[in-house]
């Protein structure tokens, strides 16, 4: 490869690396993405706290909600996979696949509410608090993913 092409590639690479952290910062503030990851160089800018899942299932979309009964191992694996992604990507990811796995495992339920309880260190009080993020899913015949929306 000629020097001019290689130098051009390096200039493009360095420009991208200079601009990318601004995009990553945008993702942090728009989607709660962790500053620790995705090459935004924000390590130690924010405490790394976890999240937990609550799932409410309904036999009809308007019916009474009930906690999810004990589920199979693959459902737990999917929940864990989602939480691992959620820890860093937050609202840049969604529990669509987890919802589908739950629907597949428990055919009697027609609707799910998945609540992700984010643990956050509150800057005002200095206490660890939870900030729930909700995703609603309704089973759709022959449609693979949920039709959830989220609210915070």
């Amino acid at each position: 490869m000629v020097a001019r092409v290689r130098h051009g590639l390096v200039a493009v690479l360095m420009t991208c690396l200079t601009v990318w952290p601004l995009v990553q910062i945008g993702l942090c503030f728009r989607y709660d993405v962790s500053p620790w990851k995705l090459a935004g160089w924000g390590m130690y800018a924010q405490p790394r706290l976890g999240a937990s899942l609550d799932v409410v299932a309904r036999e009809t979309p308007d019916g009474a909600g009930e906690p999810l009964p004990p589920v199979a191992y693959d459902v737990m694996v999917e929940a864990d996979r989602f939480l691992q992604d959620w820890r860093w990507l937050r609202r840049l990811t969604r529990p669509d696949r987890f919802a589908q796995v739950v629907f597949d495992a428990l055919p009697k339920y027609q609707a799910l509410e998945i609540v992700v309880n984010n643990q956050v260190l509150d800057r005002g009080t200095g206490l660890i608090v939870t900030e729930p993020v909700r995703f609603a899913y309704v089973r759709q015949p022959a449609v693979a993913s949920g039709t959830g929306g989220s609210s915070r």
Partner: protein
Amino acid sequence: MEGDDAGVIQAERVGRGIARLADFLGDDDPSVRRVKLRVFETVLVLVVCAEQWCHTLAGVRGTAPSTGQLALATTLCGLATFHPRLRRGGFAGLVAVHVLVVWRFFPATGNHRYLELILCSLALLLDPRAEADRVPYLASLRWLVVVVLFYSGLQKLLHGYYFQGLYLAYATVEEHFRPIVSWMVPAAEAARLYALQPTVGSGPYLTGAPLLVAASNAVYVTEIGLAALLLVPRSRPLAVPLVMAFLVAVESAAREAFFGTLFVSGALLFRPGAANRAVVPVVALLMAALVLTGAGVLPRVVFF
């Protein structure tokens, strides 16, 4: 036609601007640039090889290829980089290994892995033996150091956990942060912080200790300030030792040996001459110690 001419002139201006910036950042004694860059590459190879072996020894699992296979591939590629004819192939292999690692652990991939991928990519594209490559290579590496320092400070400023010392107080949930925090807060307050469990409802992690608040704010001010000082050639003699001192202070708590070593090596590129040669035996010993610690031969003192 006029539009084309204007485009060409604009492109030439941009090209001249980049060349001027490269000269500014790559300004150094031409006779030592090659040595300086090869030393940096040596440190890079030592770090990536040691890190991959430490992951293997720590039992980090993943889908095939195994971490052991990746460590072996990293070592072979690393060795190849020292042979003039195999150098480019070696760095191409290291880029491939790092792409795989970034992909496999995404989104949990650590930022030091991205940094290593970028550095290996630069080494693949540029060669210290080619005179024309030396200035852009040195300039790119120096620019990376500035970018990482600046954004590290900016992110701390924007996320707001450092204004009241909240991050440092919370960080004491990890024991290795306690020695550095303990001399900044009264003993009773330190004991209260250490007793807190990081569960919902725990806290407050606000201490109000003036020294902790001052040190906390000094972190991002120092990072952003040092990035600016490194940029200006006249302030570099002051900035480089300050960066070293800052890194020692940070690593005494954070203990990220691989990232810290790469960063020290990068910061030394701002020093005149090939002063960075002196760090190679130190880095080799440190990396050997880390691998031996991972293998259980040496007692566990510090780790990534």
